[in-house]
């Protein structure tokens, strides 16, 4: 049987910017057996509020539970499932790729096609900065895998709702 592919959900959570809140959120996920694919946290323009972006996988019922359980936490101000809204997603990846003499041009070509920036160079590696949505990141990393990836650091997905069009 094919493994069931669970839909991804990008959930934005606005929380009180006080100690312990992140652990309430992550504790809820681990305690109830929900998945976290990625998680980003930082202050918003209002320094009393932080915004957490969580990418999780699960069917409709699980996602509904995740959102309801998050809303139940006292320090959580607002929860939105951005996947249900028109939104923009971005993730940044730093990746160090092997680049020997014969493959240097190929790595640069891939970087160019996907509009990556070269942020560090050595005799036999390039370090690239890639920004894009989930699909783009996966596509680049798949291609670079063939060249030999030495190390990857990812920010996790950030997302924001698109402004309403007239």
């Amino acid at each position, binding site marked *: 049987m094919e493994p069931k592919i669970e839909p991804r959900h990008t959930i934005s959570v606005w929380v009180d910017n006080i100690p312990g809140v992140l652990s309430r959120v992550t504790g809820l996920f681990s305690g109830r057996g929900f998945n976290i694919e990625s998680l980003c946290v930082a202050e918003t323009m209002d320094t009393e509020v932080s915004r957490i972006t969580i990418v999780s996988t699960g069917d409709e019922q699980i996602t509904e539970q995740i959102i*309801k359980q998050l809303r139940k936490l006292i320090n959580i101000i607002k929860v939105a499932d951005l996947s249900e809204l028109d939104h923009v997603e971005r993730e940044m990846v730093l990746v160090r790729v092997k680049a020997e003499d014969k493959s240097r041009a190929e790595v640069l070509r891939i970087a160019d096609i996907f509009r990556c920036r070269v942020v560090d160079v050595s005799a036999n590696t390039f370090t690239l900065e890639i920004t894009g949505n989930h699909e783009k990141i996966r596509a680049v990393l798949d291609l670079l895998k063939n060249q030999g990836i030495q190390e990857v650091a990812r920010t996790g997905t950030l997302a924001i709702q698109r402004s309403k069009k007239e």
Partner: protein
Amino acid sequence: MKLNGAQIMMKCLEREGIKHIFGYPGGAVIDIYDELSRTPHIKHFLVRHEQAAVHAADGYARASSKVGVALVTSGPGATNTVTGIASAYMDSIPIVVFTGQVPTALIGNDAFQEVDIVGITRPCTKHNYLVKDVKELAQTIHEAFYIARSGRPGPVLIDLPKDVQQATTTPKFTDMVKIKSYNPTYHANPRQVARALDMILQAKKPVLYTGGGIVLSDSSEELYKFATTLQIPVTSTLMGLGGFPGDHPLWMGMLGMHGTYCANMAVSQSDVLIAVGARFDDRVTGKLSEFAPHAKIVHIDIDPSSISKNVVVDIPIVGDCNETLRQLNELLEVKPARDWPEFRQAWLDTVNQWEKDHPLTYVWDDKVIKPQFVIEKLYELTKGEAFITTEVGQNQMWAAQFYQFKYPRRLMTSGGLGVMGYGFPAAMGVQVAQPDAYVIDIAGDGSIQMNIQELITVVENNLPVKIAILNNSYLGMVRQWQQIFYERRYSHTDIHAAPDFVKLAEAYGAVGLRATRPEEVEPVIKEALNTTRPVVMDFRVEREECVMPMVPAGKAMHEMLLA
């Protein structure tokens, strides 16, 4: 006027109307205890184990409709409260637990009696706080009480470092609570209520399935009105017992694993199931895919996360049970009148037939006491008016089956977490809240030993709690499972190596009574009820009696074992 943290805490308790607290002192709360000694209007009950303080606060809260309070020291004092807190969380009981903490400068240094109790209790409290600044103390305590009792109630913990108890400030007391993100929905969406009522009015075979939410929101009257007007038969969870009178013709008994045949069949056959303040626990539903397979489900609950968690419902209604039932009743009044008893006759006949076919019963024995008989006698001799607490296991299920709870808030039991050792300390709290009532802990010989040290607390404080031990010298419920599902391999459930409970009671200064034959049951209960001191009744019951009916774990509700 400048006050220190301990003084501020006492003022806050006074403002919240707290008259009784349960606790145990220690190095990290010595300042609070010092202040307590100068606070005559708060009576403190010194337990002998911190777990008991929390269960007592829990029992007190249930019996009084107020918030229960426990106070313990840091480290082991705090960790000992975890079971009690987790139980209150599962059962949605409003309590506030104060724990001492090492001075803020030492937090994180593995100081003596330091533990991260806020971290430990995060998943089993409704909310918790570490107060690091005495200026925030008054507001935090007020918030904690508000959170504990509002919405879906639950336990809140406040961790108080020793230096915060000692630091002084000019406190600003307030009755305001501003938590921007916390706003429970009490009034249900009228459109959903109207849709639900239309569906219920169409139903041919409706069933009301009620839970602890009925008791917690004091909705018994509205429930009674709704059920009796529309002639809908009622079943409830363990937590909901007493929410609808147990001696009413529409009452079918508890549902679920040890529910009645009638209730489980009615749910399985129903066409509309109205769940009110219940949460579709696995002990209720059995095999989920076969739970109420023919029914459209209406679910009323104040906690949105309870809705469609286990069972996907057709009409979700987020709201306070009492408020929502009132909305339903009001709407019902303007609907065209109908002869409901006539309309409902066929369904009620079917239900009554199930009840006749397989009532709750047991085989009488002339020589050996049947545990069910003890409960029946307790019911009869207290006229169903007693406050009953239970331990966990067979004693709990027999209490639920054979004591017909006529009023809400008369059964205190650790329903969700299932804590052995809950009943006796809870009974202590109930007796404090209801000093003139009969308070009886229905116990097993296993469970009672988990908090038996509290005998000295009830003796010291003249709390005339009665303990009825259904003593079968087994950890009975596990033994029952071993008998039925593990070919009678009684691995470590035989506890006939036991203290003499009568002598033990006497050693503590309580009264000990024993019954070994059926004819001794009534005199023992009568004597206990006529005694104004704490009493331990040791009923030597049939060793291998099983709780029946039983839906084996994971089976559908209609696949009951009947005997």
